[in-house]
Every structure is written in structure tokens, then in C-alpha cells.
């Protein structure tokens, strides 16, 4: 055994993040830590990498008991962690990031020597990155390489990857997996944190499942025959992995975009000549790498921004210059991309957050004052309908888990029986249980005759929910196709701006009709 963590417990006040967790990792293996959000995976690894101190428990490395008090100790023991949110300084160059905080640094830095060593490492592991590039200018995939190189430069023997695929395109995931194989061939040991079942089956040797801070089981991945079994173990109850989607014949056109362009205040062209239409009873899924113009496109539809060229038609009326209030009145519901920044007011209660959309309802008002009793009763019922777990409607939003916060927002938006539902990354950062629930609700809206625009980076979600799929790259729609003719590989290529063989603009336009 390379690493043994025994009976580790970590508390944050009342909350027990890890309870009596024991984990053993063999040298040279890829060991998965599987669990939902809040299962305690990251906390456990933060203990190992010195960001937190455990309250109880013992850590052994190569059979020897070790004490890790801070990040420096962990690094000295050969433990490196690539955090989900990269610990890079964007304003600095790659090589500056790599040498930052090294204890062998002299007072004045020898960056050239360090760059030579970095290039050597890059060649050895097939991870070449330009040492003199500014980190802010690198793609997410490249930034991840820098993080891995940073750990290798510190002679890491045990590398912890915290949800490394969350931000990558399918092709980047492939190249990450290839990297991981090279690393283990060179004798490194990897701990791979994930809640995606396919990845664990694809790359890992053994898997430890965590639930609510406790270990459920450690199993050999080779012994896993059934993905469903693994999912149930993770969630602790039966979950339905399949989304039930009855056939619906699309109705009238609700939203039509014609040659939309958007140039932001810095003069950057974010959206370029986008045209498509969505009808009642269909879900149009838009996938693409973050920052491909999806946010600006959605803003042009919701009235948070106005298209600089082209026309938006909502229910047959031009809505290009409509203010957001007017657009909402047309039955548009919006689940924004950033829950905390756009969708909710954390300090306000569930009650007040729900009221934000219904504040003008006649039955909620009496001589211009709110009838709080009626409002609470109504919202109470809504919370029950949407299975929101909370102490009561007067609980502040910040106290809820991410999944429950999102359910409140979904409840608020769906309760309006929208003509058009715009859902942007509706399940980002949510656990599998909440994800499946919200996906079900989106399909329900479609079945009830809403047109749905779904923007997501999760290709499985796009494939499961959409009736038609559009791929966005660099502000453009690369292609629109029926769900049946899409594959993950095809979408992945299009997301990277590559037109797959056998596909051409003809198909792209055909699908757009």
C-alpha cells in the first residue's frame, strides 16, 4: 500500500464532513473517489494535501505514519493535488506559476533553468506547454496540464485530481486519460475524484464510494458489471438513470432568431450570425465550450442585452428591443447560468425569492401590501410539489444545498407555465439525484407544450434531453442536427470548431429548419 488513511474524521462546527473514513491506495493504481456533492471527497483530499487538518485519524505513506500540517508538508511527502478550481495565478507566466513557492528557490529566480527542466518533464510525460505563455491566455485543458506539471515538478508520487473532467471537452478528456495512463506507467499513483460513472469505468482500477462523509465500499472496477449498481451505491437509493421522453409533435414556432449578431462593449464579436427557431413541444439543446457565446446569445433572447444585428421574434412579435419585463410577460422563463449571481438573492428567504416573480399577483396583494399568509401558504405548497428540502419557506436561500436552491428556481420559473423555457447549465454542480429530478421537470415542460432552449456543457445531458442539437463554437452555430443523428464524438469535434468528415453546411442548414 502506498497510502493508508485510517479512521479519519473531520468536522466543520456541527457538520461532520468525514466520519471514520478509511482509504487505502496501492502504488501505481488509479483509485477513484466516487460520491455526490457533499459526500466529503474533496474534504478528504484537502486533508491529504494539507489544506485542512483532520480532527481524528492517522495517515500512513509507505507504511510510515506521517503528519501533514500544511501544504508544504504534503508537497515534501510527494503528494500533489490538482484542485477542481485551478490554483493558478492567471496574470503570471507558466514558469512563474510552476516555481512559485518552491523552497529551493534562490533569492533571485533562475527562470530559464526552470523552464529547461519543465520542458524535460513535458517531453517525458507528453505534456508540452510553453513555459513563457501567460496562464490567462491558455485554454482550460492547457491550464490543467500546467497544474499537473506543477505537481510533477515538485516530484509528486501521488497525484490527486479533483473532478478533472468537469471543464473539458470530450477530446480533452481523451487526452487527459492518455496522460493519466502515461503517468501511471512512469510509476505515479493517481487518486481520481469524480461523480461521473462512465469515467470511473473508463480509467480507474479501484473505486471507493463515499456517501454523506462515510465510506460505503471499496471495489475493483473490473468487478463492476452494472453502472446502475454503482449509481445506487453512491446515492443510497434506487435512481433512474434514464430520462423518460415521450414522442411529442412540435407545434407553433415560439422563438425565431434570424441572423443575430452581438458585439460587446469592448468591441468583441460574441455572437455571429446565429439563426434558429424553436417550436412548442421541442427541446433545442445548445452545447459548446464555455465562453463560445452561449451567455450572450441567451442574454439577447431574455432582453438582458440587445442584439446588435438581426431579429428576434417571440410569439410572432419582434422582441429585439423589448425590455426584459415585457419579454417575461410573453411567458418566457429563465433558469440562468449562474445561480448565485443571477438567479437568486442568497440573504432573502425562499418565500421572498419565489415572490420575486409573482410580486404583482392580485391575490397576493391587499391595498398595495403583501398578504404574507397567503403567499406563504402558496409557496409552501410549491416547495412540497418540487420536493424542496428546507426548514420552511422563511429559511434564507444560502442555507440550502445547491440542489435545493436550484429546485427553488426551477419551481419559480416552471410555476409560470412558460411558453419558452430557457435553461442554462441547469444542473451544473448538482448531484445525481437533483440532476435527474430537474431534467425530468424540463422534459415535463416540453411535454406540456413549452419550447425549451437548453444550454449545457454536459454532452450526456444534451443527448438525453434534446430533440434537436445545435453546437456553438466561437460565437457561431457550427451545426444543428436532430438528436438521432448526433453522437458524442461528432458533438465533441464540432465544439472544438472541427467539421467532422461527411458533414457539411448542407446538413447544418437542413437541421436548422
Amino acid at each position, binding site marked *: 500500500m502506498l497510502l493508508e488513511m485510517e479512521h479519519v474524521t473531520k468536522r466543520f462546527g456541527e457538520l461532520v464532513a468525514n466520519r471514520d473514513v478509511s482509504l487505502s491506495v496501492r502504488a501505481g493504481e488509479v483509485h477513484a473517489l466516487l460520491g455526490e456533492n457533499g459526500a466529503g471527497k474533496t474534504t478528504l483530499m484537502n486533508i491529504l*494535501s*494539507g*489544506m*485542512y487538518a483532520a480532527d481524528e485519524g492517522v495517515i500512513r505513506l509507505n507504511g510510515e505514519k506521517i503528519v501533514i500540517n*500544511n*501544504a*508544504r508538508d504534503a*508537497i515534501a511527502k510527494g503528494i500533489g*493535488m490538482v*484542485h477542481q478550481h*485551478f*490554483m*493558478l*495565478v*492567471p*496574470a*503570471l507566466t507558466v514558469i*512563474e*506559476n510552476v*516555481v*512559485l*513557492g518552491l*523552497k529551493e*528557490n*534562490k*533569492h*533571485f*529566480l533562475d*527562470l530559464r533553468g526552470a523552464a529547461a527542466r519543465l520542458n524535460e518533464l513535458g517531453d517525458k510525460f507528453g505534456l508540452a506547454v510553453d513555459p513563457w505563455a501567460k496562464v490567462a491566455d491558455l485554454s482550460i485543458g492547457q491550464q490543467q496540464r500546467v497544474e499537473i506539471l506543477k505537481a510533477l515538478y515538485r516530484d509528486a508520487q501521488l497525484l490527486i485530481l479533483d473532478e478533472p473532467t468537469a471543464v473539458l471537452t470530450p477530446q480533452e478528456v481523451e487526452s487527459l486519460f492518455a496522460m493519466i495512463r502515461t503517468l501511471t506507467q512512469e510509476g505515479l499513483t493517481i487518486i481520481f475524484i469524480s461523480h461521473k460513472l462512465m469515467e470511473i469505468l473508463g480509467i480507474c482500477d479501484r473505486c471507493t464510494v463515499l456517501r454523506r462523509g462515510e465510506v460505503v465500499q471499496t471495489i475493483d472496477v473490473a468487478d463492476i458489471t452494472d453502472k446502475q449498481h454503482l449509481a445506487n451505491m453512491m446515492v443510497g437509493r434506487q435512481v433512474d438513470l434514464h430520462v423518460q421522453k415521450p414522442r411529442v409533435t412540435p407545434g407553433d414556432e415560439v422563438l425565431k432568431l434570424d441572423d443575430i449578431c452581438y458585439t460587446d462593449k469592448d468591441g468583441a464579436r460574441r455572437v455571429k450570425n446565429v439563426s434558429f427557431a424553436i417550436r412548442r413541444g421541442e427541446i433545442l439543446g445548445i452545447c459548446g465550450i464555455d465562453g463560445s457565446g452561449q451567455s450572450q446569445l441567451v442574454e439577447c433572447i431574455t432582453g438582458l442585452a440587445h442584439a446588435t444585428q438581426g431579429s428576434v421574434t417571440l410569439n410572432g412579435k419582434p422582441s429585439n428591443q423589448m425590455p426584459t419585463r415585457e419579454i417575461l410577460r410573453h411567458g418566457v422563463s429563465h433558469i440562468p447560468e449562474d445561480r448565485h449571481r443571477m438567479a437568486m438573492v442568497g440573504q432573502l428567504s425562499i418565500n421572498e425569492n419565489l415572490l420575486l416573480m409573482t410580486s404583482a399577483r392580485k391575490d397576493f396583494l391587499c391595498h398595495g401590501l403583501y398578504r404574507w399568509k397567503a403567499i406563504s401558504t402558496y409557496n409552501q405548497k410549491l416547495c412540497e410539489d418540487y420536493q424542496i428540502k428546507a426548514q420552511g419557506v422563511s429559511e434564507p436561500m444560502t442555507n440550502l444545498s445547491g440542489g435545493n436552491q436550484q429546485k427553488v428556481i426551477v419551481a419559480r420559473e416552471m410555476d409560470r407555465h412558460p411558453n419558452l423555457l430557457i435553461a442554462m447549465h441547469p444542473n451544473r454542480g448538482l448531484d445525481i439525484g437533483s440532476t435527474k429530478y430537474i431534467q425530468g421537470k424540463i422534459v415535463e415542460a416540453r411535454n406540456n407544450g413549452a419550447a425549451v432552449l437548453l444550454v449545457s456543457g454536459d454532452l450526456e445531458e444534451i443527448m438525453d434531453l434534446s430533440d434537436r442539437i445545435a453546437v456553438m463554437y466561437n460565437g457561431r452555430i457550427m451545426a444543428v442536427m436532430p438528436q438521432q443523428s448526433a453522437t458524442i464524438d461528432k458533438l465533441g469535434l464540432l465544439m472544438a470548431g472541427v467539421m467532422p468528415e461527411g458533414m457539411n453546411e448542407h446538413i447544418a442548414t437542413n437541421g436548422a429548419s
Partner: protein
Amino acid sequence: MIQWTTNFLASTFLISTPIILVGLGIVFSERAGVINIGAEGLMLIGALMGVVGSWATGSVILGTLIAMLSGVFFSLIFAYLTVSLRANQVVAGLALNIFAGGFTVVMNRLIFGVAGNAAKIDVFNTVPIPVLKEIPIVGASLFSQPLPVYIALIAAPLLQFYLMRSNPGLKIRAVGENPKAADSLGISVPAVRYMTLLYAGAMAGFAGAFVSMGQVSFFSEGMIAGKGYMALAAVVFGNYNPVGVLMAGLVFGSAESLQYRLQASGSPIPYQFLLMLPYIITVLALCVYHKKTNRPAYSGQPYHKG
């Protein structure tokens, strides 16, 4: 005309020096992510303590050291409030400035009496540089200055190199741009911020001492008159680089110098307008210069571990 130019340049260097000195200090603490509005108050304390020190010891050098130490001392309090207790940096800085205003008045009157300070003290004398002082115009302006002027001009490029190429310099930049990343690599964010703040305090004390003992030879109440704020503007205008601070300091200094020249030459413009000149130029500089900057991403944000 040659005489006018020489005088103009000479006073520009003299007037710019305190702005540059304090700017070279706070550029480091700003890079580490701490907004250091308190520099104004620290300069004021430095100006008084320098005079007191010089008067008590009879040496301008010892006086300046005392000014620097008092800058370090009050910076320590500021650092404790903002780094350890995570108080709002702007509020703590304003508090320090208000405190310094009152503190220096009280101390000045206690030590030198209400009538004001008539005590004769040792001050910075000009140190002409042999040979170079013979050059026309620059000889009499640039190379016939008190020691701190030379220090300010030489320190800027050296500090630039230090910030960009040394190990501590890299840590400082990392702490301001992404403290969490620095923490994950075993760098102590509070330690880095404390060090830059103490250094900035010493520089503010030095700059203050130069105002009271390099430009004049006495302390007067409120004599810093916004030079600390102008240094903050110089840091922004200089794009958070020491050499940039030097350039910006010279621009602001030249504006003030011009204002004096115009007043002396009996300009028909009321002197109140001329007095505004350096401040107007500061404001205009900040208006014109709003490009993408090296402003640290975590500027002004206290760091919570975990």
C-alpha cells in the same frame, strides 16, 4: 530660458521625490492585494517624527530613521487590523489618516509649543555629484539634489527588477493575484502582506521626512496635503510597476512645479486655480489611462483560509 528650465527641472525632482518614495513602497503592498490609503497619514506622521528625531539627535539621518520606524509602527497596527482581523482596508486606512491628522497636531504642539516650531534642525543638504554637476541644465537640476532624490531615482528600476525577478517578488505578485493558489503552495499570505505593509510604512515615513526636512526645514500641520493620495494615483497611473510609479511621480511633480513657476512669474490666473493644477492633472491622468492593467485580481480583499 535656460535658467527657467533648470529651475523648473530642479523643483520637479525635488517635489516628485516624496511621491515616488511612498509610491515605491505602496506599489508592493498594492501588488500583494492591500489597498493602502493610510499612506497619507503615515507620511504625515513621518514628517513630524523626522523633525522631532532630527531636533532631538541633531542628525537628519537619525531623524529619518526615526520617521521610518514610526511609519513601520503604525503600519503594523494597520496590518494587524486589515490582515489579521480582516477589517475593511479602505475604512482602516481612512481611520489611520484621520488619526494621523490629530496625532501630529497634538504632538507638534506638545513638543514645540503652540507658537509653532522655530527650532533649528539638521536637514537634507544638496549633494552635488562631482563632474556630472557641470553639465548644463541637468547638472544644476538633476545632479545637485539632496540624497533622497538620487535614492528615489535609482531605487525604482532596482525595485522593478526585484518585483519581477526575485523569489519574494513573485510571491508578492501571486498573493495579490490569487491568494488561495499561493496558500496551496505553502506560501503564507498574511506573512507576505505584513512584510509588504511594513516596508511600505518605512517608505512612507521616509517620504514624509523628506517633505519636512528636504523640501523645507520644519513641520507644519497637514503639510502632506494629499501627496499620499497622489502616490496612490501614481501607482495606478504607473500600472502597478515601480518604474511606472517613477514616471507617474515625475509627471505629477512637474505639474506642481509648473504651478509654482507660474505663480512666481506673476501669471494673471488666480493662484487658487494654479494650485489645482497637479490635482487636475492627476485626475486627468487617471481618466485617460484606463487600459487593462496589472491591478491585482484580489486587490482589497481580505484572505480567509479554508
